[in-house]
């Protein structure tokens, strides 16, 4: 069953001086008990997408001017603040990148971990406390009772991140949004946290949207991958398909530019130019200006559709004109996959 579906989501930021189009038509789905890894560089709109699912973008300046966010079939954008509060922190929880900034420095850990439970459930304080200690233990904090009485600053970065994960999981949410949860951590601690998330995911049957710029990290935990560039999803695939071959020129260049430990290349391949920002709804392919396989005017003028090229495995979608001929064939000889997609749209 589809738990979360983003349909053609557009977000822009309006200030007096300018309007910036940050998210320009994002489509993805998260099935129940599935982990979707969202990959992209800074400025590609991945965090804005996450925050708009949670309804946490301040408006103004943010303006979701098009699209739908369907959670279990309800469009979250239509809900009132009060209705939204019943869902977020309860059924949808979020883990942020920097635990030092996301935890309240003047409140004890115990209070902060218990808070979602006391807000959303009819539960006594003693029961909430018991539950909080249990979840902190499950998140790998052995000395939970002592930690409950401490303030965030006395914990290390890895411990703070565990506290944040405990806070997010205490209401047993059906969807967890993790925005770069290990970026601020060392590799050894990162490995611990990734193990923890993997175990918790199996124990609680939680679906996850795992946002990161780190491809190796995300490839270990995800079932599906979505690659974002300049506010658009340019490629989606299962993790196995994605590892085997990448279809979009951007994804191909990105994979090449990562230094690998087994690699001995003298120069790292690079992507020329910088990520563009848009002051209007972008026309054509967003990657056209930097694309190594630029075809011509159609790249500048026509927006490529996210679909499965004929040679590719089922479910491996990309939005690029180099597969255009194959698109036509797909249309004339529709597969089950494309029929399903047309119906959805």
């Amino acid at each position: 069953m589809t738990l979360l579906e983003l349909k053609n989501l557009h977000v822009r930021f309006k200030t007096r001086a300018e309007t910036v189009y940050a998210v320009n038509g994002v489509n993805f789905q998260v099935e129940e008990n599935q982990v979707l890894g969202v990959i992209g560089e800074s400025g590609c709109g991945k965090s804005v997408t996450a925050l708009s699912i949670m309804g946490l973008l301040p408006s103004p300046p943010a303006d979701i001017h098009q699209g739908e966010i369907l959670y279990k079939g309800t469009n979250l954008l239509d809900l009132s603040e009060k209705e939204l509060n019943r869902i977020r922190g309860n059924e949808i929880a979020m883990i942020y990148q920097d635990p030092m900034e996301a935890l309240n420095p003047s409140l004890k850990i115990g209070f902060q971990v218990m808070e979602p439970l006391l807000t959303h459930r009819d539960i006594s304080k003693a029961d909430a406390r018991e539950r909080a200690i249990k979840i902190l233990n499950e998140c790998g904090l052995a000395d939970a009772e002592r930690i409950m009485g401490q303030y965030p600053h006395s914990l290390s970065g890895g411990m703070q991140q565990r506290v944040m994960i405990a806070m997010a999981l205490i209401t047993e949410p059906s969807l967890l949004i993790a925005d770069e949860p290990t970026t601020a951590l060392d590799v050894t601690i990162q490995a611990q946290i990734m193990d923890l998330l993997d175990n918790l995911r199996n124990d609680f049957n939680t679906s996850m949207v795992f946002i990161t710029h780190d491809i190796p990290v995300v490839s270990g935990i995800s079932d599906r991958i979505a690659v974002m560039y300049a506010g658009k999803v340019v490629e989606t695939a299962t993790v196995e398909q994605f590892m085997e071959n990448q279809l979009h020129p951007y994804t191909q260049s990105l994979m090449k530019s990562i230094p690998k430990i087994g690699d001995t290349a003298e120069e790292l391949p690079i992507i020329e130019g910088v990520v563009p920002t848009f002051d209007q709804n972008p026309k054509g392919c967003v990657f056209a200006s930097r694309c190594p396989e630029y075809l011509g005017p159609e790249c500048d003028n026509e927006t490529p559709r996210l679909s499965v090229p004929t040679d590719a495995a089922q479910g491996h979608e990309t939005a690029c004109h180099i597969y255009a001929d194959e698109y036509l064939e797909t249309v004339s000889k529709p597969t089950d996959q494309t029929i399903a997609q047309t119906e959805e749209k």
Partner: protein
Amino acid sequence: MSKQQLGSEREFTDSLLTVTDLKKYYPVKGGILRRRVGDVKAVDGVSMEIHTGETYGLVGESGCGKSTFGKTITRLVESTDGSIIFDGKDITQLSKSEMNALRKDIQIIFQDPASCLNPRMNVRQLIEEPMSSLTDWSQEEKNKRVHKLIKDVNLSVEHLSRPPHEFSGGQQQRIAIARALSVEPKLIVADEPTSALDVSVQAKILNLLKNLQAEYNLTYLFISHDLSVIKHICDRVAVMYLGQIAEESPTQKLFEAPKHPYTKALLSSVPKIGGFQDDRIKLQGTVPSPENPPSGCRYHTRCQEYIGEICEEEVPKLKTIGEDNLCACHHY
């Protein structure tokens, strides 16, 4: 100069920087009288030798003292004990004016370019500033150099009149690099120069640093927590743990056959594309506090190859194993 060879295939002999038993303790004050009650031993007896023209990597987790080490050898913080011989002179003994004369030869690049570039200056002023304060070059000479440098770091002359906030993170780091290079340094301490950047931008900066090294015969002390970056750029690597060096080895050897248990654990924690390797060594807990480090071998509290009492009682010395591999562990 001919195109340099990759990694450990390059050979260097001239010693540029020799550090012997360097220590940096930060006092911890407590009680009503704010007396000294202990020390944070950020760097506790580090020795190393860096050769002219090489890239020496220093890797470790946060809090292991690698940045403090970088700051100590540039004398941005004063060392507690030990000697730093740079180009024949012990820089810990130099007076302030003697040190200022030497600053020209040692430059540093920081992690976050946005916070080390003065927002009120334009790019020309930023690149010119070190030359004005550290050299007596004429204005004409300085102008010529600014123009050359801005092209060397792949920016253009039109950028010179703009303030730093108009640039992206990668471009700001290029400006910081041009600034460090302006006074023709011999040694550059690069403290996590790409950690704040995206992978595709990181690739550009790493390529740039390599090309500049070939062009200007630079020596780098490259500090990073990212092992794949270290692997890519360094000739030799030292692994630091709690203020001490656990292992030092030519890059190729370190990654192919790590000796110290900590290096093994660190290497196996690096995620590969497709997930972690199956036989990963799982490290428990976090780095102990440097204020009260474990006795004996500092790694014994987390070590997966713990032998016995000797690990808790005796501090292992850095010993030469094979030709050029140094390791501090009771196993050897």
